[in-house]
């Protein structure tokens, strides 16, 4: 009895320690975000009393955070919408129709998941420059669609393939066209999988850095990760202000996560669970 209680307590203690380890850095940054650099240098781990809330508006207005946020929303939302529609169409087609090139196309698309980004990034730079899409949100959006397309199709195809074909036969009997079958039968059934890919793509693209750093230089077109990098470069050794800037980037994610944690976890792990 006591042995098992002891074991439980030890286990809980271990788990709590790991929790402190996993989330500690964020808590620490949150504390620093409310303190001035002078206070921080006096003691790096003290609680934020008094709390300098005014640092948040300060960081927001002294930088271009509004622009960065706007750009990120614009690029990511557009890319996710295109991805969802285009990806679902392709996935439905690959799952539903049998034709000679079906598996070839599927395999070619699918194997792209393991491509290291370098294999395309240099020539994407050249291509976007040629077509006047370099340093533009349109160009970045298109690239984002391209890099997430294989994973999207892969996840959706496996879901579409599981929809019983009787359903489609019944729909055809009712006189549905091919497009209507996709739009009004398959897609509504696949909604959970579609939601999953939307979440996954949204998070991955929201955090994307490599393509953005290569394809965007203009201040007005920077997405949030580039903006944070810029903010840090400019703020130099002002640790307190950088922490505030980081928190501005973290908070929206945390808020969304607090409300939809299960959905988010499900979305993020979609590519790994089978």
């Amino acid at each position, binding site marked *: 009895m006591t042995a098992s209680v002891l074991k439980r307590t030890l286990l809980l203690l*271990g788990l709590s320690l790991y929790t402190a380890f996993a989330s500690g850095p964020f808590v620490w940054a949150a504390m620093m975000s409310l303190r001035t650099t002078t206070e921080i240098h006096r003691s790096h781990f003290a609680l934020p009393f008094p709390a300098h809330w005014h640092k948040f508006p300060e960081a927001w207005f002294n930088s271009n955070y509004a622009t960065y946020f706007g750009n990120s929303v614009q690029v990511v939302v557009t890319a996710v919408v295109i991805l969802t529609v285009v990806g679902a169409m*392709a996935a439905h087609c690959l799952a539903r129709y049998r034709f000679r090139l079906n598996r070839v196309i599927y395999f070619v698309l699918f194997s792209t998941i393991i491509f290291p980004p370098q294999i395309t990034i240099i020539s994407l730079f050249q291509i976007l420059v040629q077509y006047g899409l370099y340093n533009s949100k349109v160009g970045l959006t298109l690239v984002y669609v391209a890099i997430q397309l294989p994973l999207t199709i892969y996840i959706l195809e496996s879901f579409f393939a599981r929809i019983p074909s009787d359903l489609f036969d019944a729909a055809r009997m009712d006189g549905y066209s091919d497009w209507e079958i996709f739009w009004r039968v398959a897609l509504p059934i696949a909604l959970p999988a579609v939601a999953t890919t939307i979440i996954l793509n949204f998070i991955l693209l929201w955090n994307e850095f490599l393509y953005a750093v290569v394809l965007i230089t203009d201040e007005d077109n920077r997405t949030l990760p580039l903006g944070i990098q810029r903010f840090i470069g400019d703020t130099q050794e002002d640790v307190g202000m950088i922490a505030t800037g980081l928190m501005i980037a973290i908070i929206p994610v945390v808020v969304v996560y607090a409300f939809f944690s299960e959905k988010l976890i499900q979305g993020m792990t979609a590519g790994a669970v089978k």
Partner: protein
Amino acid sequence: MGEAPAHRDDGLRKPWGTIVAFLLPAVTIYVALTAYPAVRTLWNSFHKVLPRRDEYVGLANYVELAGDEIFWKAVRNTIVWACTSPLVEVSVAMLLALALYAKVPGARFFRVAWFTPVLMSYVVVGILWLWIYNYDWGPVNAALRALGLGALAHPWLGDPATALPSLIFVTSWMWTGFNMVVLLAALHSLPREVIEAAELDNCGWGGKLVFVILPLTRATVLNLIVLSFIGKMKIFDLVWITTKGNPLWATETVSTYVYKRAFEWTTFDLGYPSTIATVWFVIVLTTVLAMTWAFRRREKLEF
């Protein structure tokens, strides 16, 4: 990549128009922004690609690459990263998943909390860990000093001996929660009776892990290892934000080296970095294929 499901139309009626209409957007995007760039990179790799002029150089770039120690250092670092990090992540994740599987109070909270780091961008994570590793006031050295181990305080990212392990540690910190969630789901999908039977057989914890749980979750574990491996072979953001490959190329990865040669070095040549990309592409492709093949020989692996 399962068998073609049986319910597919039998092929008697092939509505080619519909098929093309459904696939065209995806295939166009793929060809224009993935396939064509990849081919063009291959073309670049045989050229010197300078602003406003290209020049055919045959295999010269490849010859130069073979003797480029920085490249081989980057390859070594990346492979070390891709081989150690998945093992750490998955094994720690397995322990954590087992702990939660044992029905501890607050399991749901733990699961949600541990998953958080994955949701953050590497830019944020990189800066946080720059501070954590700070020599003067970072928590790592502060903790060591508080424990009276001040002699062990170290410029973690400044010393070539510790810089790479320190960064690997960060990626493991970031991804362990993710792996834990997937493993936990796999554990929950196991038939209860099997585990209970093992309990009745008076199997110890270790025995249960080795003889029952691991074989049953094998597919998931291998799958996670492959995924993590692929991810680490691409690593760029974290290095770029923290060390940029310093000190002495100790944290240089192939991705950062390609970026540097393409957009930072004074040469302005896009041909040579394309050569690196091409060679690296071949290396990644063969390794992943070999891994999948080796794993699948023993058990069909899906990922």
